């Protein structure tokens, strides 16, 4: 046992060192690295529902968008009248000092973690009774509806969009902004990973799996499935909200349907990444998100105009050849490396049966 721990320690510490050194090693890629951290967080949290609990949600984008608007609103609203900031036309110019900016984003992120979690609890209470496709379709509606509603609320900019506070001008270093958002998202990534890893070692994960495998049986065994389903969703919402808050600050401009409640891109990507890597595994979403991001950044611009066709092909390839994701494929190919013992006789017997 101790030996295994030591190996893990080496792996984790080298990854953390790599993560900390990355913005200095690849200075020009800070923004992409920040995106990568956020994508991994989204894929990991989606995996809690889609992978572990068996509830394919398209609604996590709701919490992401909510977090984005909340962080920006708090950051502005703490120091200036929000309505005047977002007023279409925006005749007045307000400038955050460095202290205001960082205080604002700090409090904003706190709010953007808590409120989406509460919203997830409330919505979850209402709709987590649905199962299978019904749940998926219902959550799909959530994201779309949220986008349209946000597009009509004047105080957050409505259709004009919401320009988030610019990085304080007192900080002359042009690299500072990139570093700030990178380390923020990296911290979030570590937090999420530690949390999810903790869940993987807990009874909670087994309950989620029980719900996935047979919800009625789980209930019959005395598990209050609703309670656990809601808790699971609230955990995801907590981290999605934070991810959204960070992205809002990084992008600098929030549009209701294209940036915040971006179900067409982010909402689909998080599902795709988790499935690509292998849902229901700890490392799957991490690997999936990383591969996906590299694929996207590397190839996207080489095939201008055809990128979505390529994405479509990628989805088809994943579903046909790696239905269980990369981790699932590896596990099938090299089960012994995952600590699974295979009885050769038994395996052969099964093959013959077929």
């Amino acid at each position, binding site marked *: 046992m101790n030996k295994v721990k030591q*190996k893990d320690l080496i*792996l984790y510490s080298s990854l953390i060192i790599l993560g900390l050194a990355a913005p200095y090693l690849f200075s020009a890629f800070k923004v992409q690295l920040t995106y990568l951290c956020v994508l991994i967080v989204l894929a990991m949290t989606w995996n809690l529902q889609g992978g572990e609990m068996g509830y394919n949600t398209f609604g996590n984008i709701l919490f992401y968008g909510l977090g984005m608007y909340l962080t920006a609103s708090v950051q502005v609203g703490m120091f200036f009248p929000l309505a005047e900031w977002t007023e279409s036309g925006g005749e*007045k*110019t307000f400038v955050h000092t460095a202290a205001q900016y960082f205080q604002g984003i700090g409090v904003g992120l706190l709010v953007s973690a808590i409120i989406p979690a509460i919203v997830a609890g409330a919505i979850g209470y209402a709709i987590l009774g649905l199962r299978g496709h019904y749940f998926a379709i219902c959550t799909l509606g959530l994201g779309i509806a949220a986008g*349209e509603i946000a597009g009509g609320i004047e105080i957050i900019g409505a259709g*004009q969009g919401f320009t988030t506070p610019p990085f304080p001008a007192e900080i002359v270093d042009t690299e500072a902004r990139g570093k700030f958002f990178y380390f923020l998202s990296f911290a979030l990534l570590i937090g999420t990973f530690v949390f999810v890893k903790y869940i993987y070692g807990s009874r909670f994960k087994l309950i989620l799996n029980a719900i996935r495998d047979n919800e009625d049986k789980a209930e019959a065994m005395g598990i209050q499935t609703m309670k656990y389903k809601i808790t699971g969703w609230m955990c995801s919402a907590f981290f999605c909200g934070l991810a959204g808050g960070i992205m809002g600050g990084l992008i600098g401009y929030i549009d209701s349907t294209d940036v915040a409640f971006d179900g067409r891109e982010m909402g689909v990507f998080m599902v795709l990444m988790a499935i690509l890597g292998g849902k229901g595994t700890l490392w799957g979403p991490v690997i999936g998100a990383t591969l996906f991001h590299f694929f996207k950044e590397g190839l996207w611009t080489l095939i*201008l105009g055809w990128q979505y066709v390529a994405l479509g092909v990628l989805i088809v390839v994943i579903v046909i050849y790696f239905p269980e994701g990369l981790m699932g494929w590896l596990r099938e190919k090299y089960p012994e490396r995952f600590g699974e013992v295979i009885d050769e006789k038994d395996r052969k017997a099964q093959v013959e049966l077929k």
Partner: protein
Amino acid sequence: MNKIAKLFVTFISAITLALVSFTSSFAKVEGEYIVLGSAISLTGKYSSNGVHTQNGYNMAVERINKMGGVEVQGKKYKFEIIYYDDESNPKRAAQLAERLIKQDGVHYMLGPYSSGLTKAIAPVTEKYKIPMVEANGASRSLFTKGYKYLFAVLSPANQYLEVAIDLAVEKNGGKGVKIAQAFEQDAFSQDVRLGILDAAKRTGSEIIIDDKLPKELNDMAATLAKVKAVKPDVLVVSGHTKGALTAIRQISEMKVDVPMLAMTHCDAAKLSKQHGKKSEFALCASQWHKNLSYKDKFFGSGKKYAKDFQKEFGYDPPYQSAESSAALLVFKDAFERANSFDRDAVRDALVDTEMQTFYGNIKFGPGGQNVAKPMILFQVRCKGDDCENRVVAPTKWASDKFYHPIPKWSERS
């Protein structure tokens, strides 16, 4: 270490190596080329206008290069543009701007298509002090943020249809009119709406329908049903190319009678070609029209530009292409006056720009918007089945009289 972990570490180190070897970015001026960068909507909801923009850029690059290029410190340089596709998505646009600047080493930017995307890119160019000449971001809020490196060759969006309201009031004997309006939920159209609100206040007009339409505008039947019921004097619609097409399609299908129809993006949507007589009498705001009498030495007159453009790309240039071409002329002029590739020197030269192009006069106001060029209005008019856009306002360039009111559908053949 177990094998999975090993695999993972190998994977990570491979990526690390790949990235390190890739980081060597190239410079803003390479050999005889001045490299400009632009994120353009080649796919997504703005793709048709994105292509108009790109064609405009390409046309000007080719022309300037052919006619000797840009002379800086006695040496001739040529323009070259690196394009990325922003997928009509602000998030992607901001990311690509960062990529152009940090990875491709671009020091001068050309704008994207649409106000929303320009809003997303401007904070990035501003942060890195990269001069950006943009030709397709008209939202007024772009020019009130105190941006120092943003220059727009076009007039702000709130001016688009203000003139139309003035015209309607004039036709109504100076009395206020009843306005019905429907605008897409996007930065540009909402700014056009603000212009109308101002004009309504000024002229004592009343707004009786004020609808917001979704993006990806494919249906506005609900608004039109209301219009049929309350009979306004003016109907104003703005929603980029799709908005213009949808409006004409449904107005003609539902036979909505309204004395005056004011829109944006009629020329980009090729309304007169696509809908022919159905689009007749639509009044459209435009930044430019080929009949205007401006001139420059690269493209000659507007008419010549239109002819060359038609030859090159096979369609009549909408103003989106013309203004995009003008952006390159502005850059060339600024480089030559700065006589340097120093970004701040180029920026200072841009501030002092005062020139005439085939597209119009260009002089930047303190916020970066072009203050030397008025908006124009044209009306779609048909002879038989042949429809074309004729300038009706301002009077200086008007080739035709403004036709008012629009005949009822029952009286139209």
